[in-house]
């Protein structure tokens, strides 16, 4: 066969094995790390699951204490998530739209609850609502430390940053031209927000709600510091696990853990179905 002529000639078969070997090693290393992590998570979960038999799991889950902690957990988590999202939507919108000198300061302040150790956050709440505002609030009939209302406050404080971050990411992804065009079509700022911006941020808001809900669900440090761990009073699922481990009732503790795991898996499933970018496999 005649050799092709010209400055650049490409023939059908080329030897690229040398490059492929390097690529294969790179891929195997990455896949190996992923497999190790998957195996580690699975083994830990399996160890938990096989620790309790079905009969004792059913007995524990129907015990008055577990039922109380499940109820209290769901109620407080739902209220704190609701409050958190109610404030997160306007706050995130303001952060997304505002580009000024104070942007970095506001951003950093809002991120503080993420980086502050959970116990320190609980202590800070205790000092504010106990030491400084305690007497004044008690006089008004609203004392927060060591109460169920306090659990909501602790959960709200720990989760509000996550809510704002999720919703802000959704607002950031919306072109500012869309509400601007809505204005030229006759919408006032509120209507443009309600008819254009808000529906487009819907998935981000729902994902933020789910993320905040799951974050509140497992919150322990700030709650135990601010509200203590009193059975049948401030006993949410994480504190219930702590109380049961501290008195050697490992079966009940594992049951509580499994319930939390089921809730967490459900929320993660919903979260991923709603399409948080970068977290999806499908």
């Amino acid at each position, binding site marked *: 066969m005649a050799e092709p002529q010209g400055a650049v000639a490409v023939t059908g078969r080329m030897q690229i094995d040398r490059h492929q070997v390097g690529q294969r090693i790179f891929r195997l290393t990455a896949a190996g790390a992923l497999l190790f992590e998957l195996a580690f998570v699975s083994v830990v979960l399996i160890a938990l699951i096989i620790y309790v038999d079905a009969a004792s799991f059913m007995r524990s889950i129907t015990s008055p204490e577990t039922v109380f902690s499940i109820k209290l957990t769901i109620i407080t988590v739902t209220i704190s998530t609701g409050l958190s999202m109610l404030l997160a939507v306007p706050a995130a919108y303001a952060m997304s739209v505002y580009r000024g000198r104070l942007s970095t300061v506001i951003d950093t302040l809002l991120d503080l609850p993420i980086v502050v150790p959970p116990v320190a956050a609980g202590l800070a709440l205790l000092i504010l609502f106990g030491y400084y505002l305690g007497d004044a609030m008690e006089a008004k009939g609203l004392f927060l430390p060591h109460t169920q209302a306090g659990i909501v406050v602790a959960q709200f404080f720990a989760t509000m940053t996550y809510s704002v971050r999720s919703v802000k990411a959704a607002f950031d992804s919306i072109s500012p*031209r869309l509400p601007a065009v809505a204005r030229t079509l006759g919408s006032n700022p509120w209507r443009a927000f309600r008819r254009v911006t808000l529906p487009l941020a819907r998935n981000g808001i729902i994902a933020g709600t789910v993320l905040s809900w799951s974050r509140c669900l497992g919150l322990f440090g700030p709650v135990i510091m601010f509200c203590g761990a009193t059975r049948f009073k401030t006993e949410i699922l994480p504190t219930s696990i702590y109380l049961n481990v501290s008195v050697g009732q490992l079966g009940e503790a594992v049951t509580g853990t499994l319930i939390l795991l089921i809730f967490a898996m459900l929320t993660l499933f919903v979260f991923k179905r709603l399409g948080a970018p970068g977290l999806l496999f499908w």
Partner: protein
Amino acid sequence: MGLGEFSLHDVSLTVEKGQYLCLAGPTGAGKTVLLECIAGLHRPDRGAIRLHGCDVTWLVPEARGIGYVPQDYALFPHMTVFENIAYGLREQGMRKEVITRKVRDAAETMQIGYLLERDVLHLSGGERQRTALARALVLDCELLLLDESLSALDVVTTKELSLQLADLHQQLGLTVIHVTHDFDEAFSLATHIGICHQGRLLQLDTVEEVFTRPTCRTVAEFVGIANVFPRLGADPQTCPVVSRLYQSPIQELAGRCVCIRPDQLRFSRNGPPAAGLTIPGTVRQVRWLGPLHEVVLDAGVSMVATLSRQEQETLRLRPGDSVNINVPDEAVHVLDDR
């Protein structure tokens, strides 16, 4: 007005009812900001914007009644084509049957009647453009603002939509301000052209006037006049040919520049033609530009001429050929060097 690091300086323009004004200029010239000021999306620091004599400088965009189609069309992605077109009508609180009728009429005018139930994310560029136009036109606005509306489309669709825009302008008696960086697009659509550069409006006039009598170097370059010879006053020795062309004392050209229209240069191979100034030159390159040929010449300075296909067939210019370049008086313009 200032927007971040960008500013518009002393821009004054008046657009008469029924005019099709194209604001042309390179990217970053301030065309879009000017358009957004008129739409009410930015407020100028100084000056005033008037619609039919009424000051609307401080009026919110929703109260101006101006149709606006941005560069990316900004169709609402969570709505269908129908819902997008109906958006403004719903904001006006119209009855459902009126909205349906008006939306269908607008869609038929823009030839997208078959797309009404379609998701806007699945439209082609031309369909998106037509939807955005229908959404603006359905509100019966008298002033339509178009921001680079044809720039992202392929050549065939651009041509088709240009014709449709020209038809709509005539049929509806619309006043249009159309921002573009494409002079050909401006030329084919506009009755008037404004040339913007670095936040300033350099020239605003009829298409013919801007094309034949640009007021400054930037405008001349933008309308495709390739032979621009700036800063003659600074060093007269660098452009002896141009000083001959203009035949003026070189000092009078200080702060100004000479430009020669490439389409008005004439050539001969043997001896000078009857009238006008003639200088000798050598052909360096001949490029085929479809209906025209571009000839790059060395006449002491580098010059460009354009020839029609017939002219080139007669002359058969090739690189290296020696020619006499005839410059008629009307081909030479003295412009502000800015």
